C-alpha cells in the first residue's frame, strides 16, 4: 500500500533529494515547487503543533516538561495499528479507540509517576519524567518488538490529490484542517468554560486555585487527558503520513515539539501552534533551499531553540513571569 505514496510527500529528506535531482540549478525555487514545499511544511507543522499543544498545556499547569509525551504519541500510533491489525477494526474506529485509550494511559501515567512528586523539587519530577519516558520506550520494545512495523494507510487518506500543480496526499490535507479545528475547540474550552477557567487558575497559582475550591487533581488529569488525546491523534496521523512504526518514533518528534512549544512561548496554546508551524516550515524550507544541509536537519530545531532561549527566553507569544524570591 505505501508504495503508492509518491516520493514527494515522504518528508523533507525526500523533498530535498527530489529537488536535488530534478533541478540542475539547486536552490532555485519556482512557484509550483514553492507551493509544494508550503503544503509539506503546513502538514508537518500541524503535526508538530498537535504534539506541542500537549507539552505547553502540561507545562503551563505543572511546570513540568513531560518527557514521556513523545512516547504517548508513539503509544497512540501503536494502539491504532493494533486496532486495525489485531482486531481488524475499520481505521476510523481504531483511531477513535486508540485516542480514548491513549487518553486514559496519559492520565494514569500522571497519577503513577508525577502525582506522588508534585511537591518535590522540580528536578525530581523531571528525572521521574525521563524515567517514565525510558520505561515506556523499553516496555514498547519488549511488547511491540524493536523491529519497525509497516502501516496500512486507509485508502481515503492515502489518495493523491492534484491541486493545480501541487500534488498532495489526502492525509497531509486532513492534518492541518483537523489541527485548526482542534485549536479552535481548545481555545474555546480554555477561555469560555468553567473547566477552562479552572485550568487557567491552576496555571496561575496552584495553591490559590485550591483555596478557591478548584479540584486541582481533576484539572491536572483533565489536562493530561487532553494532551495525550492530541498526542495520540498526532501519532496516528504521523503513522498515516510516514507509514512506519517503531518504539522510538516518539523521541525526536517529542523533543522537537517541546522545542516548538518553547519557541512559541511555553504555556500558550496559540504559541505552541505557531512554534509548531514555524519549526515545520524551517525544517522543510531550509532543506529545500539548501539541500547540502539536509544532514543537519535534526539540529535545526535545537539551534532554533538555543537562539530563542538566549534572545527571548519567554518565547514568541509567552508572557514574562516575574521571578519569585
Amino acid at each position, binding site marked *: 500500500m505505501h508504495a503508492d505514496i509518491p516520493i514527494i510527500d515522504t518528508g523533507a529528506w525526500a523533498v530535498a533529494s527530489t529537488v536535488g535531482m530534478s533541478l540542475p540549478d539547486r536552490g532555485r525555487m519556482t512557484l509550483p515547487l514553492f507551493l509544494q514545499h508550503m503544503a509539506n511544511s503546513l502538514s508537518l507543522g500541524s503535526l508538530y503543533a498537535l504534539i506541542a499543544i500537549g507539552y505547553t498545556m502540561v507545562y503551563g499547569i505543572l*511546570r*513540568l*516538561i513531560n518527557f514521556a509525551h513523545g512516547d504517548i504519541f508513539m503509544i497512540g500510533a501503536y494502539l491504532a495499528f493494533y486496532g486495525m491489525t489485531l482486531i481488524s477494526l475499520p481505521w476510523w474506529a481504531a483511531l477513535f479507540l486508540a485516542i480514548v485509550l491513549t487518553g486514559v494511559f496519559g492520565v494514569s501515567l500522571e497519577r503513577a*509517576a508525577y502525582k*506522588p*512528586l508534585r511537591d*518535590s*523539587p*522540580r*528536578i*525530581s519530577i*523531571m*528525572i*521521574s519524567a*525521563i*524515567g*517514565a519516558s*525510558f*520505561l515506556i*520506550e*523499553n*516496555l514498547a*520494545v*519488549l511488547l511491540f518488538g*524493536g523491529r519497525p512495523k509497516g502501516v496500512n494507510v486507509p485508502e481515503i487518506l492515502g489518495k493523491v490529490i492534484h491541486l493545480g500543480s501541487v500534488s498532495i496526499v489526502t492525509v497531509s490535507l486532513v492534518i492541518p484542517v483537523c489541527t485548526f479545528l482542534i485549536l479552535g475547540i481548545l481555545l474555546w474550552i480554555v477561555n469560555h468554560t468553567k473547566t477552562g477557567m479552572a485550568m487557567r487558575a491552576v496555571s496561575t497559582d496552584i495553591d490559590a486555585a485550591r483555596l478557591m475550591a478548584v479540584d486541582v487533581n481533576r484539572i491536572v488529569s483533565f489536562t493530561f487527558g487532553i494532551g495525550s488525546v492530541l498526542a495520540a491523534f498526532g501519532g496516528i496521523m504521523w503513522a498515516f503520513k510516514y507509514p512506519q512504526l517503531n518504539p522510538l518514533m516518539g*523521541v525526536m518528534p517529542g*523533543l522537537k515539539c*517541546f*522545542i516548538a512549544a*518553547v519557541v512559541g512561548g511555553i504555556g500558550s496554546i496559540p504559541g505552541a501552534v505557531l512554534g509548531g508551524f514555524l519549526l515545520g516550515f524551517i525544517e522543510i524550507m531550509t532543506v529545500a533551499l539548501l539541500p547540502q544541509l539536509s*544532514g*543537519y536537519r*535534526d*539540529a535545526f*530545531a*535545537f*539551534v532554533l*531553540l*538555543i537562539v530563542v*532561549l*538566549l534572545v527571548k*527566553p519567554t518565547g514568541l507569544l509567552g508572557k514574562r513571569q516575574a521571578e519569585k*524570591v
Partner: protein
Amino acid sequence: MKLKKNHLYSLIAIAAFAVFALVGELFFDAFTLRIFNNCAIYIVLALSLNLLNGFTGLFSLGHAGFMAVGAYVCALLTMPPELKEMNYFLVPIVPWLKNLTLPFVPALIVAGLVSAFVGFLIGAPALRLRDDYLAIATLGFAEIIRVLITNLQSITNGAQGLKGLPRYSTTWVVWICAGLTVLFMVMLMRSSYGRSMKAVRDDEIAAEAMGINVFKVKVTSFTVSSFFAGIGGALLGHMITTIDPKMFTFMLTFNILLIVVLGGVGSITGSVVAAIAVTVLMEVLRFLDEPMNLIFVKTGGLPGLRMVVFSAMLMIVVIFRQRGLMGNREFSWNMVSGLRNAFVRKGAGGQDRGHSGHGGRDGHDGQGDGKSEGGHRG
C-alpha cells in the same frame, strides 16, 4: 591521633584495592575484566555529572555530547596515520590531522581540555537559563554536537565512526583515572570552590548576597564537569576500541543520570557505589533478556526486559526514595565505627536526612569526612 588512624585505614584500603586490581588483571577472564574496568569509567562519568546535578544544582542533560568530544579528540590524536587512512575510505581525512599523533596520556589530557573548552563555550550562554530550560538547552547542544560529528566527515569520519582504536584503557589506566577523579572531587568539595557550588545549589539568591559570583561558579562547575566527561568518553572509546556518533545519544546520558540518581544526588560515595552496582547489574541482569525457565513459566527470551527493569528501578527510586542510596552523605571511617557503637543515634540521623531540607544539607555533607579532617579546615 584519630586523624592518623583514619589515614592509615584509607591507605590500607587503597593498597588492598590495588592488590585486588592486580589479581583481577591477572586472573579475571576478559569479560569480567571488561566489566571491572567499565566500573572505573562510569565512576569518572558519574562523578562529573554529579558535580553538576548534585553539587551545583545545575540540571544538565548534555553529558553524552562532551563525552563524544573527548572520545573523538583522544581517538584522533592517538590513531597512527595508517589506521586513519584505513578508516577514512569514503572521504579522506583533512591533512593537518592526518599525521598528528600523540602518546595516550597527553592525548587524554588534551581530550579533557578540548571537552572542557567546548563546555565553557556552551556553558557561558546556556547557564543564563535555569532548571528545565537549562536541561533542554544542554540536551540540544549535545544533539547538535552529535549531528556535527555525523556530518563533518573529513574530520570525524561521519556515521562510519572510528574503528580499531588502540586499546589503551587498561585496568591501571582507568582505575588510576577513577581514583584521581574521586580524589579531585573530594578535595574540590572541601575547598571554598566546592562550598560556593553547594551554596549556589542550595539558594542562588542567598549565595549571591553572600558575595559569591554565581555565574562564575556555574561556568567553572560546568567546565570542570565537561573536562571529566571528556576524559570518561576518551577512556570509554579506547576501551571499546570503536566509536561512532550513535553511541553518544541521550541514552548514554540517561545511563549516567541513572547512576547519579540511584547513588544519591550530591554524594561522591553514592556515585562511586552506584557506578559499580549499576555496571555490574547491567551485565548480571543480562539473563533477563535470555530465554528463562522459571518453574511454571517458560519465557522464550525477552530482549529488552533488562532495560525495563532498569527504567523501573529509576522510577521507583525517584518516587519512593528521592535521596537515592546515600542521600548526600559521604563515606568515612568514622561512619564505620559509628555504625558499630551508635546504632540508635544513626537511626535518628538517618530519619532526619530523609527530609529534603535545604538548611541542614551542608552540615550532613561535612558529617562524614568533616570530623576527621576538622583540623585541616581550621
